[in-house]
Structure formats: structure tokens, C-alpha cells
């Protein structure tokens, strides 16, 4: 199995950067990813002060969220869709969350001034029954632990002609979405703008609550097992996710209500075009089907970053059902 080891980090998604790995459609391969601060935090003493982060933050946007890639997927062209299936995510033996001065929703909240000070919280990751962290736990302290639920925070293909930041870039080509459904078992669909699609990914979150309230999740190095397929000549409105039990239309925007509206309209287009529903039927079913979900994945205030939402519809709801009563 091919493996892309940690190499030169990409802080932009740039179609001119030569690919570091070439894969066939359907080929399963491994990708190592760096954490969001490029390994800056190793212990709770590695405080992310303004001064200490200078090597990264002296750029605009800052050089956070290093990405692995670009990965050239044979057969993918401009105008196709790239479908990325995530088979496994193994996170490192620890993750870190932190508070960065001046960053985060309560960085200037005088009621609790300590929230504006640099701080690090290390979470130990312990292996589960498989012997790896794939099914392991994150230990918050000696009393609190929870299941690891890792996902890929930033995933994208190179934009057509722009060069976008790995931290603040988001678009029809991917970006920093911090979406917990970009996880093991999911297939992510991205619009391709180049030959080979040029996939970049990183910023794995070992665990994250809805919204990513402080702006920093449980950030960790990881090893991904993924494969890609190509859907020829298809364009979608922003990105989509297929899970085993549901389909999800993603959208990132501000304000939140615009993101929700766009995600729902994108889901309706999906239901109409691929599942054959009449627009009126899709409209009403989204309103009345109790299985419909709006997921608020990320609402971090950082530069031009939009809030990430998903409009999720259960696959089961597409199947005809009749009451047995």
C-alpha cells in the first residue's frame, strides 16, 4: 500500500505545486497528516503566546493547518467530481487544544480574563480493543474521558486559479470545514478543477464539540487510510457527504442562516436531480420529515472563514414505507 509520509507542509492550496503522490481510482493508500500548529505543542508548557507563534502568525493569513499533498488521482479532470472515501483514521497518542491570546469568542471577555491568556490542554489518546486509537479514548483528566471521534478538519482540491489559505480558505473545491462527518465510513464529494484533482488534507481533529467554540479542537497528528473515485462530468453546489445511513449537503458561509439556507437548497437539488423528487415534494418533506437534520459543525470567528453546516437527510426516507397497522 502506498503511503504519503509527513513532508513539506502546504499552507496554501495551489494548483501549481507538483503532486507528491499519484494514485489510481479505487486504490487504497495511507496519508500522514500534521497537527494544526505544525507540531508546535508537545507539552502543556508549550504556550501559544503571540511571541511564540510568530514564525507562523507573521503571515497573513497565518501559516496554520499544514496540509499533506497534493495527491494526483488518475483519471480526474477539471469538471469531474472527486469522491474520497475514508476507511480509517488513526490519531497520534495525544492531542492538544489551546487558547491563543486575542483569538476565540471570549478572548476579550472581561468577566473571565483568563480566557484571553495562552493555555494548553493535552488530551492523552489511549488505544481501544483493536490495539490502535481507531476505537480508542481521549482522556481529558483522570475522571473524564470519551470515545475518540476523529475527522479530517481540512480537505480540498486545488482551486482553479486562486491560491487559497489552508486556514481560511473555503469554497466549492473544499477547505477548512471542521466537519465531524468527514470521518471513517464517509465519502466526500468535491468539485475538481485540475487534471488529477490535486487533493490536499490535514488538520485532523481527534474530538470536537459542535461549533468548535474556542476555535481550537482536540488537534492531533494522524494517519489516514483513504481511496478516491472519479465521477465524470458532474458539478455539485458546494460539497456533499454520503454516509451509510444518510446524505449530507455541506455549506460554509456567514451568517449562519445563509449557510443553512444554501445547504438546504443544495440538498433539495440533490433530492430532485438524483433521487427524482418533485421540488414541491422535497420542499415539504424537509419541513415535515423528523429524520431531517441540520448539523452546525463549526462557527469560528476567524477572518473570512464561514460557518460550516450540513443538511442531512436519512437514506431510509427515500424508500417507500407503508403502515402495518
Amino acid at each position, binding site marked *: 500500500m502506498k503511503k504519503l509520509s509527513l513532508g513539506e507542509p502546504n*499552507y*496554501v492550496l*495551489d494548483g501549481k505545486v507538483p503532486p507528491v503522490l499519484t494514485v489510481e481510482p479505487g486504490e487504497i493508500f495511507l496519508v500522514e497528516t500534521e497537527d494544526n500548529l505544525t507540531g508546535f505543542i508537545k507539552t502543556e508548557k508549550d504556550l501559544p503566546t503571540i511571541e511564540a507563534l510568530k514564525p507562523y502568525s507573521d*503571515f*497573513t*493569513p497565518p*501559516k496554520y493547518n499544514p496540509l499533506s499533498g497534493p495527491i494526483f488521482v488518475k483519471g480526474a479532470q477539471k469538471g469531474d467530481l472527486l469522491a474520497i472515501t475514508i476507511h480509517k483514521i488513526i490519531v497520534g497518542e495525544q492531542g492538544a487544544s489551546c487558547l491563543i491570546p486575542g483569538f476565540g469568542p471570549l478572548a476579550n471577555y472581561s468577566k473571565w480574563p483568563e480566557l484571553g491568556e495562552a493555555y494548553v490542554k493535552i488530551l492523552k489518546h489511549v488505544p481501544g480493543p483493536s490495539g490502535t486509537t481507531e476505537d480508542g479514548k481521549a482522556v481529558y483528566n483522570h475522571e473524564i474521558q470519551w470515545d475518540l471521534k476523529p475527522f479530517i478538519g481540512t480537505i480540498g482540491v486545488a*482551486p*482553479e*486559479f*486562486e*491560491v*487559497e*489559505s489552508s486556514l481560511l*480558505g473555503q*469554497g*466549492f*473545491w473544499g477547505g477548512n470545514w471542521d466537519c465531524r462527518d468527514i470521518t471513517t465510513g464517509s465519502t466526500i464529494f468535491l*468539485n475538481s*478543477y485540475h487534471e488529477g484533482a490535486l487533493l490536499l488534507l490535514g488538520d485532523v481533529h481527534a474530538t470536537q464539540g459542535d461549533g468548535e467554540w474556542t476555535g481550537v479542537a482536540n488537534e492531533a497528528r494522524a494517519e489516514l487510510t483513504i481511496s478516491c473515485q472519479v465521477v465524470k462530468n458532474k458539478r455539485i453546489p458546494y460539497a456533499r457527504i454520503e454516509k451509510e445511513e444518510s446524505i449530507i449537503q455541506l455549506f460554509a*458561509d*456567514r*451568517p449562519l442562516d*445563509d449557510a443553512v439556507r444554501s445547504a438546504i437548497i443544495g440538498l433539495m437539488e440533490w433530492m430532485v436531480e438524483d433521487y427524482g423528487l418533485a421540488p414541491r415534494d422535497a420542499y415539504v418533506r424537509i419541513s415535515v420529515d423528523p429524520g431531517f437534520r441540520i448539523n452546525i459543525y463549526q462557527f469560528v*470567528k476567524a*477572518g*473570512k472563514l464561514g460557518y460550516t453546516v450540513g443538511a442531512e437527510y436519512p437514506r431510509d426516507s427515500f424508500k417507500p414505507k407503508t403502515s402495518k397497522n
Partner: protein
Amino acid sequence: MSKRKRVPREKPYNYVFDAKLPPKLEVKLGEEFEIETDDAASGTIKKPEDSTKLWKTDDFKHTPILLNPINGPVYIEGVEKGDVVVVEIIDIIPADHGWTAKLEGFGQLAYDSRFPKIHERNLVRSIKHSPGPSGTTSDGKAQFPRDDPSKSPIEWNLAPFFGTIALCPDHEVISSLTGPYVANKGGYGGNWDARDVKKGSKIWVSSYNEGGLFFAGDLHASQGDGEWGGVANESPGLGVFKCEVLKDTEIPYARIEKEDSIIQLNNGRPLERVLDEATIWLMQWLINDYGFDEQECYDFIATCPDFRYNVYQTVPPDHYTVGAEIPKRYLLG
């Protein structure tokens, strides 16, 4: 008068802010120079029926679409990363006409069915410009034609400004239509559509490259607040600029200094957040540079009847542009 250097309007046009592009002109600090610009649709719109064709041109097969050509970059000697460039706009001369259009799927009422006649046709409305006292359209008049030719055109004074001005980003390459925009730390400009980027204004933008690498384009000969339909009175034209530098200076986003007032700009969404940030940054400006105490400044902003919020541009899905403005006469003490 010595002849100014000029960046001529010539194809192929440029649609990105990219620090790797070779400068088309080098100027000294304080040296006046000229940039010729084409209109937002790269000159493809000339006749009323051209608007419907626009969507079928190759420019629309890209992501983002290729609208808003910008001319430059101009390399400004003495400017480095970490400086603020103060761009003074000496003059703006629109062409003898501009145009506006309802573009399919674009603008505030893109898919709104309440005014069905809006969507019946995608035609261009040509707006005639006539020279003013200066002998140019810099201070001329616009004639907005009515659909019923028996009605006389609506006339107003032209109020030309550059919709898009910017320096090059740091390590991104961003579309001239959809960017660039950076919050908090200095902004380098972008497609603001701010009517105060006009003759007599000084625009403060942050430099991220040696030479600053200045671009201008997207001249609006006139525009209402918000640019409601998504398209202003778009016109080719000529800008006359000169640049000064504030060495090693950090400002939040960007600023405009007009003859009688100062304006803190901001850009983003949603509107209320953008206004809040602009106000906080204006307070920092007043406190740091104009001797206000913190509480005094807070009270002043809340009570001064001449404190103004300018809502320049609110076109979805782009980011909104606002300015928080205070007259200079309050800043003398």
C-alpha cells in the same frame, strides 16, 4: 505639467491579485501615475442584448468567474512588507457612458419572483455621461434613461470611484471579483465597491510585499448605497494616483481619510458584526491617534450626531463593505 507614467488598458486582462505577476510600472513615493481600467465585464457589454450573452462567454466557465479585471501591479519604491500604503486618488475620469444590467441569478432579487418583469429579459441599460465644469466626466452628469422614451431621463451628478483597489496578498492568490479580504490584521483591499474610494480620498491599505504591488479596476461612475441589484453604473475609465508610505505600521483592516472626515473600513458578513468591528477599530484610532480617553470615546460615538455608518455594498454572496465615519472637526482638540 510633466507627463505622468501610465499603465495602459491592454488585453489580456488580469483577474487575480498575485504577487508573482511582473509589475507593469514602477513609481516613486509621491509620484503621480495613471491607470487605465476597463469595466467589470471586461468590455464585452456594449449593446442592450449583450447582457444575456455574457453568461455564455468563456469568462463565465471559470471558478470564480472572470469579472472585474484589474490593472497593475504598480511597484511603489520604498514600500516593504509591514508598511501601510496611503493611496491618494488625484482624479477619476469615467468614459462617456456606463452601463448597468440585471444579470441572471445574481443580485439581491436573483431568484425572487415578486417582480416577475425583472426576470423577463436580461438587458443592458446604457447610462450617458457628460462632462462637467472641469471639461471631463470627473465632475460630470449621468443620464439614466427611462424605459418609456417619451419620459425624460433622470439626471444626477456622477460620483465616480474605484470599486476594486488592492495591494497583493501575502501568500494567497485571490480573485479580483470575490476577494481579497482579511479581518483583524491589516486588509490589503479588494472588491469593496465603497463610494468613498473617490477623488480626494486617501486610502490606507497594508502592504505584504516589497513594492506593495498596487492594482485598480472596476470603476463605478455612480452607485447607490448597497449596490442593490449587484451591478452599479459600470464604466471604463482612468485613475490618477499617488502613494505615500507609513513605515512599519499595523492598522486594523483599512482606512480612508477624506478632506473632512476619517473612515474605518471593514468587510465581511454579517452586517451587524462588520459594523461592530469597524466601530471598535474606529475607537482604537481615536484613542491612539486623537487623544480620546476610552470611556469618553465610547460616549462620544454614541452621542455625536455626525458619527456615520456607511453601508457601501451588500451584494450576496460577497462580503459586505462598511465604513464608520467621524468628521475631522471633532478631532482637533
